[in-house]
């Protein structure tokens, strides 16, 4: 008799959803989290003033070199002394890459995972994203279409709380929204000018997972409205942005059906060839290194795309000598992220009498138009721009000394509009995570060997995006534009956008994909994977919302099978 009905491996963005859905439907759920607990009163640093964070909140340089070299290289703006416990120590959690092909694997091991540190930008995929692979032949066809997921987007958005504006755009369908954060006058002017110059482009308020008008359901979980502090990297004591910690895990726990075990590193999944099911989850205690095995009728793998693939690859058996559920040889392949490089900002004059109050957590978004409303692009698929307006803040990098220097900083500077590109990366089987055959970590598990690079389409796309960025700002009347149309571009390192996807893709054919349309392994009926690994392609939108919807959909399917006795 299994101890639990379901085991969820990973407590972050997608795992939290599975825990909630399964527990609310009456299943006894065990959540395995490889990192420690997060206790908001102790671990959140969101009430510290600038003068309460010594050394400008910098982590000592020697400590960065020793423990946080990659995390800091990747997201130095977010890895600080006061929240460094939200990021892994690279020294404890190494991985390897081929020479000359660096990869940024940026992550935190703790309850809630990266749902605690995400950028909270929240966009649905559009119909075109589910059809892209079939249309241009890169990757394999999604086994579902937009309409299959739409009701689940509605479902998760209602619970999570997304602020945004209804726009009626086919390529970026509206969510269930709470009120948007209003655009500044400068953004409104930029919107008006851009939309009148480019009939196929839109400038809309960023859609972010922040409560602006909490529902009774959200309030009952102890969540409150966004206080507009922009301290989100430090955790949120108001529970105002969506995280597993603020929303899904509390919902799971209040059912009384959910248990979370921390410091539980999954070694591998035991496979029973008789039943053709996973029969146990082998776990190493992070501190004692004691090994134990948990059993359940259903296993959800939500360790994040690279780690979930690693767990499958580590789970070898006579039936699956190359890793569990890997008859297709697609486990670990098609590793995707998003690509950035194109960006620009410029000065908009005429609004010197205006300022703003509060630190808004999002700004503007320019939805994808390439190969949607504008055709004949020299690249496949497309990109969107995130952005914002702001008045230049105080700075030590301006001339002057004495009172005139103080006075110069006392008044805010020019208004600037800044836009920043996120583009789609084509699925490519050569971009791959596999087991390092020579190195192991301190728990004796093989290191991930991550071999991934940007392709030609990404390079061409960013080149075009840079031209577009410049011309949009120029045509909107901005001056002092920071980067020209032909500026030299350095593509973001693979992994740096922190949107790992694709390493156990869904598909229609078991020979070329790992999961079916329910995120259920073709080869192993009681295994579901609903983190970024399941994505056949990535769109150009921030993907967390899609993981949430896929998770809720898969969990409810699994619940049906469970009660039918099929699992």
């Amino acid at each position, binding site marked *: 008799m299994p101890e639990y009905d379901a085991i969820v491996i990973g407590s972050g963005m997608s795992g939290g959803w599975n825990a909630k859905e399964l527990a609310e439907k009456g299943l006894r759920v065990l959540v395995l989290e490889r990192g420690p607990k997060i206790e908001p009163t102790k671990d959140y640093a969101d009430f510290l003033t*600038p003068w309460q964070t010594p050394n400008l909140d910098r982590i000592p340089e020697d400590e960065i070199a020793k423990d946080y070299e990659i995390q800091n290289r990747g997201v130095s703006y977010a890895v600080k002394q006061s929240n460094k416990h939200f990021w892994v120590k690279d020294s404890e959690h190494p991985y390897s890459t081929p020479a000359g092909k660096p990869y940024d694997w940026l992550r935190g091991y703790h309850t809630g995972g990266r749902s605690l540190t995400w950028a909270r930008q929240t966009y649905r995929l559009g119909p075109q994203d589910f059809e892209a692979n079939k249309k241009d032949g890169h990757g394999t066809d999604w086994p579902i279409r937009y309409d299959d997921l739409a009701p689940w987007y509605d479902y998760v958005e209602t619970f999570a709380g997304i602020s945004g504006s209804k726009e009626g755009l086919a390529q970026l369908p509206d969510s269930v929204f709470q009120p948007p*954060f209003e655009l500044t006058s400068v953004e409104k002017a930029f919107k008006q000018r851009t939309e009148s110059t480019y009939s196929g482009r839109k400038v809309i308020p960023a859609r972010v997972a922040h409560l602006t008008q909490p529902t009774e359901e959200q309030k009952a979980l102890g969540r409150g409205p966004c206080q507009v502090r922009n301290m989100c990297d430090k955790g949120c004591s108001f529970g105002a942005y969506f995280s597993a910690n603020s929303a899904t895990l509390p919902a799971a726990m209040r059912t009384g059906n959910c248990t979370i075990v921390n410091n539980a590193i999954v070694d591998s999944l035991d496979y029973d060839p008789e039943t053709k099911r996973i029969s146990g989850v082998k776990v190493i205690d992070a501190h004692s290194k004691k090994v134990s095995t948990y059993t359940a009728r259903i296993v959800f793998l939500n360790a994040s795309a690279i780690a979930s693939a690693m767990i499958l690859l580590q789970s070898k058996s006579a039936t699956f000598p190359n890793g569990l559920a890997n008859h297709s040889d697609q486990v670990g392949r098609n590793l995707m992220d998003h690509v950035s490089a194109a960006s620009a900002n410029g000065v908009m004059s005429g609004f010197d009498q205006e300022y703003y109050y509060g630190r808004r957590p999002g700004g503007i978004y320019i939805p994808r138009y390439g190969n949607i409303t504008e055709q004949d692009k020299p690249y496949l698929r497309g990109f969107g721009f995130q952005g914002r307006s702001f008045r230049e803040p105080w700075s030590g990098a301006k001339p002057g000394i004495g009172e005139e220097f103080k006075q110069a*900083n006392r008044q805010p500077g020019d208004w600037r509009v800044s836009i920043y590109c996120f583009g789609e990366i084509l699925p490519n089987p050569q971009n791959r995570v596999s087991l390092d055959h020579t190195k192991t970590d301190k728990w004796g598990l093989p290191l991930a060997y991550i071999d991934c690079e940007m392709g030609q389409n990404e390079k061409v796309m960013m080149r075009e995006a840079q031209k577009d960025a410049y011309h949009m700002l120029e045509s909107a009347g901005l001056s002092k534009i920071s980067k020209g149309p032909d500026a030299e571009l350095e593509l973001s390192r693979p992994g740096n956008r922190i949107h790992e996807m694709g390493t156990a893709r869904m598909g229609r054919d078991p020979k070329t994909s790992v999961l079916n349309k329910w995120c259920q392994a073709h080869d192993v009926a009681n295994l579901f994977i609903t983190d970024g690994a399941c994505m056949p392609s990535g769109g150009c939108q921030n993907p967390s919302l899609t993981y949430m919807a896929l998770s809720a959909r898969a969990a409810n399917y699994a619940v049906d099978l469970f009660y039918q006795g099929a699992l």
Partner: protein
Amino acid sequence: MKNMPTQLHSKTQVIPNASPSISRRQLLMGIMVSVGATATSSCVQRFEKTLANSPNLQQAGSPQFYTDNELALVSQLTDLIIPETDTLGALAAGVPQLLDQLYRQWGSVVSQSLHRQGLKNIQLELNELTQQNFLTAPAEQQISALRYLDEQAFSGHKQQYIAYRHLKDLIARFYYSTEVGATQELRYQLVPGRWEASILMDEQSRTWAV
């Protein structure tokens, strides 16, 4: 040369909650003497007005990284770049101690060494401009020399004056991150509570510290 505002040499001001520390006064006096300064300069007066209740500053404690001469230079530059006006300046806000703490606790050996070398270069440059020990030069000459250095650093000689630009950047970062810099010189809201996309500026409006 434009004269420095008279506020630099300065009026005294009652600072709520400030607790002037004799030991700190003695410390700075000692430093000034050790580098040949004779006056109980206004620098000392402002130094002792440090907001001793600032949490960072309490932790920072007495300078330990800087030599006496380095501390005197950093204190003087801090005071000249962000002086007391109708609000406290960077010296009284404790920026030299915060810089000392930064290099003591944050800086690697390489950064520490670069910073020391940078300070040395800045002082040599300023000594040359004043034709004497900058630290003991008359205030007007100090200001004149620093103003020239600053103009050079922000007019196409960026690399040559990188140490100065870096120090100035840190002084500004620390000052506007102190309680007085953030809440009195500029403005700061720990919990804004709402978003207003457009508020009208008036003469009292100030830059948000964050």
